[in-house]
């Protein structure tokens, strides 16, 4: 230790600091003349590891030095507004749909229609292309989708003689049997608020259908509209019947998922990333079904959230970025990326792989008649924030329904005004 301290003299420290400054200040423009590509990602670890490897391979093949800065998912949400304006990378990850449109409107994402046309992505993406299209032009490429549905453990269901529910009646029946067997019927942790909004989405899509749900998302329908009465009524009934995890607001979604993983809870409404919170043994038993049907004439419609990859408008190397996207979006390459998280493949010419959950999700998606993204991706940020908070409150105090809906209505009138 003494030796180490001895060797760090003041002179050396100054030298180190100086060269550090040089590297950070002067070095970057000098290096930028050679080929360099910066990417900011927001991936979970398993997917990040695959992505980094793909980026390295691309770097070796093309002689470009690729830097991937991976942020935490939530951190990226708060940082993106800043870095798109101040210090944009060449490629960033974001969400399709309304959330993308917001940045397109502000002129922060590049138009990549020529790339889409050159590579003929339209033919393999089908309706998914709409999620990244504004006024007929594309501003991103959709990545693996998150299919939202009910997850359960096959062994736990078999052990307690439970049957996967197909209709609302089935659902209540299964939940009551689960309760009788000493299980929590539905595990939902709302500390991060959004899981409650997913439940709302599912109820509204089942009871009111996609058109009316999207009208609500676009701000064209009031939260006090009587069409929503049935949604809140059903939800209140479920809360009243004690179907959800107690003290749900205390738990994050991962903790809530662990109740499912440990066999203490019967079902959970989530996307495919649930696998990251469970042990491999639990994942092996995990099964996915669609949210139960309310009226067989309505739907099925589902929440299918697509993340996407974009080129910021002020990217330093937009041409290299396009080159990278063309490489990354090849079916074999993209399969490895999407497969890392059991995602639903965006391209129709990609194999789904062997992952049973991804296969189920893909199958369910083929049977749907239409999809929405997710409450906090379909609505403007202000509305999303208020909605998530309101739904979380509803899970605890269903009797405050009127006040909550009035508050949401006030926010709706403000949020869509601008």
């Amino acid at each position, binding site marked *: 230790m003494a030796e180490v301290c001895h060797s760090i003299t003041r002179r050396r420290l100054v030298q180190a600091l100086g060269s550090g400054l040089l590297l950070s200040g002067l070095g970057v423009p000098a290096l930028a003349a050679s080929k360099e590509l910066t990417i900011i990602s927001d991936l979970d670890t398993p997917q990040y590891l695959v992505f980094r490897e793909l980026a390295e391979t691309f770097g070796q093949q093309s002689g470009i030095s690729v830097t991937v800065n991976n942020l935490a998912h939530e951190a990226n*949400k*708060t940082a993106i*507004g800043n870095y*798109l*304006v101040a210090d944009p990378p060449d490629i960033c990850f974001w969400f399709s749909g309304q959330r993308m449109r917001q*940045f397109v*409107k*502000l002129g*922060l994402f590049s138009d990549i229609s020529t790339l889409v046309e050159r590579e003929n992505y339209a033919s393999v993406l089908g309706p998914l292309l709409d999620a990244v299209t504004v006024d007929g032009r594309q501003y991103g490429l959709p990545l693996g989708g998150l299919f939202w549905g009910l997850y359960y453990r096959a062994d736990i269901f078999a052990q307690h003689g439970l049957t996967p529910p197909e209709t609302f009646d089935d659902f209540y029946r299964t939940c009551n049997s689960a309760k009788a067997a000493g299980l929590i019927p539905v595990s939902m942790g*709302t*500390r*991060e*608020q959004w899981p409650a909004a997913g439940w709302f989405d599912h109820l509204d899509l089942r009871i009111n259908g996609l058109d009316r749900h999207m009208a609500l998302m676009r701000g064209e329908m009031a939260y006090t509209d009587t069409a929503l009465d049935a949604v809140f009524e059903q939800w209140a009934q479920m809360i009243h019947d004690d179907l959800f995890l*107690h*003290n*749900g*607001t*205390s738990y994050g979604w991962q*903790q809530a998922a662990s109740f499912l993983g440990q066999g203490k809870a019967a079902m959970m409404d989530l996307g495919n990333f649930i696998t990251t919170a469970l042990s491999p043994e639990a994942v092996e038993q995990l099964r996915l079904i669609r949210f139960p049907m309310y009226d067989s004439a309505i739907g099925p419609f589902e929440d299918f959230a697509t993340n996407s990859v974009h080129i910021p408008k002020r990217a330093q190397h937009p041409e290299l970025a396009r080159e990278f996207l063309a490489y990354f979006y090849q079916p074999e390459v993209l399969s490895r990326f999407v497969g890392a998280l059991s995602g639903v493949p965006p391209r129709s010419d990609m194999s789904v792989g062997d992952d049973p959950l991804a296969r189920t999700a893909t199958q369910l998606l083929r049977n749907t008649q239409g999809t929405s993204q997710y409450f906090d991706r379909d609505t403007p*940020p*202000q509305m*999303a*924030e208020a909605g998530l*908070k*309101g739904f*979380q*409150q509803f899970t*605890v105090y269903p009797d405050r329904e009127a006040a909550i809906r009035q*508050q949401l209505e006030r926010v709706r009138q403000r949020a869509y005004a*601008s």
Partner: protein
Amino acid sequence: MHSLLHRHRGWLWPTLFLAPGVILFWVVIVASSAESLRISFFQWDGLGDMSWVGVDNYIALFHDPQFYTSLKNNIIWLVLFMAAPPLGLAIALLVNQQLRGLRLVKTLFFMPLVMSQVAVGVVFTWFYDPANGLLALVFRAMNATAPALLSDPQWVTVAVVIAGLWPQVSFCMILFMAGLNNLDDSQIEAARVDGARGFRMLYHVVLPQLRQVNFIAIAITVIGALRSFDMVSVMTGGGPFGSSSVLAYQMYEESIQSYRFGYGAAIAAVLFVIMALFIAWYLYRMLRIERGTA
């Protein structure tokens, strides 16, 4: 040249040495505050164009139930945080003795201050976990059900403040320990000769000498309570449904999450006014102490 420097040294050197601090203060504190105040009169999503709305943000703020919840929570923070200086003093007195092993105890009390606030928050979140937390285990041992403190709108703020108090108490303890080391031994000896013991000694001899430390401990605790953000963010995210939010957190939530920078700036302005009151009081007392008229 030399004589020129010599002639002007009366103002040149002080100016030169003060410049970095003064410039930083004006750019980072004063100019940013003014800019923030300006933003509070606009409607702005943080990215696009700004549009002038006058005092609309403030009017909306005073009609926002969340604002009053946050304000109420800030007051709860202030009141409960006042427990930090006396607790810190008590612990400082306890460990300020020449006994074997007290050095270890001192270190243990010092620990939370070394840990990052975020780590403290996470540890307390686990502690409060109603299924597997330490609190739940204690309650279970007594055959009772633990309350889910972090999902109870009534108690959540108190639970978060307790987590915040932990490092704050040890901070006050350090201040008082430093103060106790600087006590005038001759006064204590004299008091002892006069027969002062225990509480009377503490109240009439020790405490008056600690007045300055006491004042600093209280002022820093007040400011710590008002700028509380990290604990709320880590432990509850302002939840459940905003019931543990404080002004600083609400400001963050509105600006960063909801892209309402004008509204967030209005909250910042209100928080600034509240803080300014305390800082004014602090400066006033400080000056009086320095002039020896306190």
